[in-house]
């Protein structure tokens, strides 16, 4: 049933209907509304049986998830920003141990300077931690991706991160259809762990592996991620068949078929991007958009196919690698080869809105060749601030 809901409330309800047995979380903006609501649901008995662990840190949260998952319990947590970084060591451990933990990341910038608002620096910093990373373009998709994430994680015995833009999605109230309990129960089968700690069948989990077998373990992680690339569209198709709407999958091409210029984006910016595409199309400019829903594993074939006809590609980067350039853009470039130039445009850092005006200007500049692939561009940079800031005097100038 569609109702007016805050994104966080909708995600919390959805996660509850996926019946996690253990939720372990530490509060951090903008994730708080999700875990507060889940705490209510556990304490009221609406979500039972479930244990909610109020841990002392995000490192503790993910570690508790490891223990809970290791005894065979469906396990969930949520975090953002600094919290995700504080979990970093445990994130690699979860994927290495093959534990199907599901986590929401309410994407937020990383300090310094401290900033609680939205960009993708947190998730991008953990790009190589071995988790599946799904990005929701809307709150409806955030809801739907969580339902799919539990299925995917447990089918692969691999952790899944559902990224939703902090505040822009987590705190936005809109009409959202939260699947009811019966629908979720029919879609998410009971958790059957691949291995678990059981006194009747003792196993050793997390042994030390030396040079003789370490490569093989990591190779198998890579294979499992490749397997995810096949499973994700399959689960999304099952979801569409049951729920009657399209959510998830690995990429979302939008009017790319005959587009000269295609803009690539992740997350909530896609809403604005698609509106600008419509506007420009109406004005006779041949543009399209490619939404990346699954950033890790990277859907190289789907990206290549979606960009096959494009003459210009621009990637809206919500994070970047200082001194090197865009993060998503490099993957795009690798996928399509040198045939088509790829422009990296850093926008929307630390909560700066990715406005339609910004997107439109980027698209127009790329189409006209004013933004070139040989540099990292900052189209929403405030040059007045750079020029007036005393701290930069004597240092590098923009």
């Amino acid at each position, binding site marked *: 049933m569609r109702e007016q809901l805050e994104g966080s409330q909708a995600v919390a309800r959805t996660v509850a209907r996926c019946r996690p*047995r*253990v939720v*372990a979380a530490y509060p951090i903006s903008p994730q708080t509304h999700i875990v507060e609501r889940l705490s209510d649901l556990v304490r009221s008995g609406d979500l039972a*049986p*479930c*244990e909610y*662990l*109020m*841990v*002392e*840190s995000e*490192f*503790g*949260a993910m*570690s*508790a*998830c*490891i*223990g*809970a*998952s*290791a*005894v*065979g*319990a469906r*396990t969930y947590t949520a975090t953002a920003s600094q919290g995700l970084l504080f979990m970093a*060591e*445990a994130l690699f*451990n979860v994927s290495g*141990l093959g534990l199907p933990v599901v986590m929401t990341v309410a994407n937020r910038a990383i300090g310094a300077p401290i900033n609680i608002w939205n960009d993708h620096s947190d998730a991008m910093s953990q790009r190589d931690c071995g988790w599946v990373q799904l990005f929701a373009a809307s709150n409806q998709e955030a809801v739907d991706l969580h339902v799919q994430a539990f299925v995917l994680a447990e089918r692969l015995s691999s952790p899944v991160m559902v990224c939703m833009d902090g505040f822009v999605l987590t705190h936005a109230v809109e009409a959202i259809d939260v699947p009811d309990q019966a629908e979720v129960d029919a879609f998410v089968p009971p958790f059957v762990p691949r291995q678990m*700690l*059981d*006194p009747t*069948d*003792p*196993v*050793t*989990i*997390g*042994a*030390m*592996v*030396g040079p*003789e*077998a370490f490569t093989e373990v990591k190779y198998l992680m890579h294979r499992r991620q490749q397997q995810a690339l096949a499973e994700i569209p399959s689960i999304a198709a099952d979801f569409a068949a049951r729920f009657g709407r399209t959510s998830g999958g690995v990429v979302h091409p939008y009017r790319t078929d005959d587009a000269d210029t295609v803009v690539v984006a992740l997350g909530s910016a896609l809403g604005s991007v698609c509106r600008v595409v419509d506007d420009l199309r109406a004005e006779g400019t041949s543009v399209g958009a490619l939404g990346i829903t699954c950033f890790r594993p990277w859907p190289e074939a789907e990206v290549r196919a979606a960009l096959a006809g494009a003459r210009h590609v621009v990637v809206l980067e919500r994070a970047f690698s200082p001194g090197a350039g865009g993060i998503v853009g490099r993957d795009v470039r690798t996928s399509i080869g040198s045939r088509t130039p790829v422009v990296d445009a850093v926008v929307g850092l630390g909560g700066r809105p990715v406005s339609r005006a910004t997107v439109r200007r980027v698209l127009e500049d790329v189409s006209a060749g004013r933004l070139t692939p040989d540099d990292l561009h900052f189209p929403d940079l405030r040059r007045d601030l750079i020029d007036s800031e005393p701290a930069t005097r004597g240092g590098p100038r923009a």
Partner: protein
Amino acid sequence: MRETKLYQIGTFAVGNRLLDPEDRSAQASPDRANSITSGHRACQGCGEALGARYVLDAAMRAADGDVVVTNSTGCLEVFSTPYPESSWQIPWVHSLFGNGPAVAAGMAAGLRASGRTSTRVVGQAGDGGTVDIGFGCLSGMFERNDDVLFVCYDNQGYMNTGVQRSAATPPAARTANTGVIGDEPGNAFGQGKFVPLIAMAHEIPYVATATVADLHDLEDKVTRAMGMHGARYLHVLVPCPLGWAAAPAETIRLARLAVESGLFPVFEAEHGEVTAVTSIRGKVPVDDYLRLQGRYAHLFGDPGRPDLVARLQALADRNVVRFGLLDSDDGTQNASLGS
């Protein structure tokens, strides 16, 4: 067929053969769980390997074999699980260095939510994984009163990484990063960090210290802890021949001398109050304990550092007063701590 040795030498403990069968140690039983079995790669005379076997076999006996275990990174994890081998005959998981108590808390929560309420959780770590890098998670686990028995095998340093100092390393001890250099050679005389007291400050149901020198006492404490629910903490002194530069054959003697000198107080506490103290029956000067260890060699000889030995003696004497280690034979009265 392996030869079975049932005798003990040089201890105050009564031999098993003089006890009623139900009072005999878990280790004396041919049916013991043998939780960590032979063939692992611990050093000769490893106190931690001994401690883990004593603790877990007693826990397995107390819980009728229904135990799951986690183990923080460290010697115990490394020497017991070089892939594809494992010495563990019980369900065992290793995650990270600093997260053992949180993993254990998650295990307890997962078991409870899954209705597997008879299965008990034991967490294990060395002193580094407990008092330093794992301390935040440990305190969180205590504060939430998670249903976990957490055991610290304290060998007083980072032995797995090559004998560096931890917050549990005693003053004046030489380690790889507290060398015999300067006016205060070895580890500094700092404020100390005796985690059993910090555990007590959380007022958790049970806190105890023990050593591998007193098997019956150690097993009794494990049994008592396993009879309770909520957060329980057991701090076991496990001498390390490598890190302490001591003869492997001296492990048990060193553990006993640590107690008899007063340097390592053995006691129990419930809900923040000391309930029992193991009295020292023949107090020895700290010299007797220190001289057996190469890590203190710089304190002796000519000229030696009698001033630093005196400071260590003062620490031992303070423990004697503070915990009432000489007050009575049964040691249950007059501890100044918590009264």
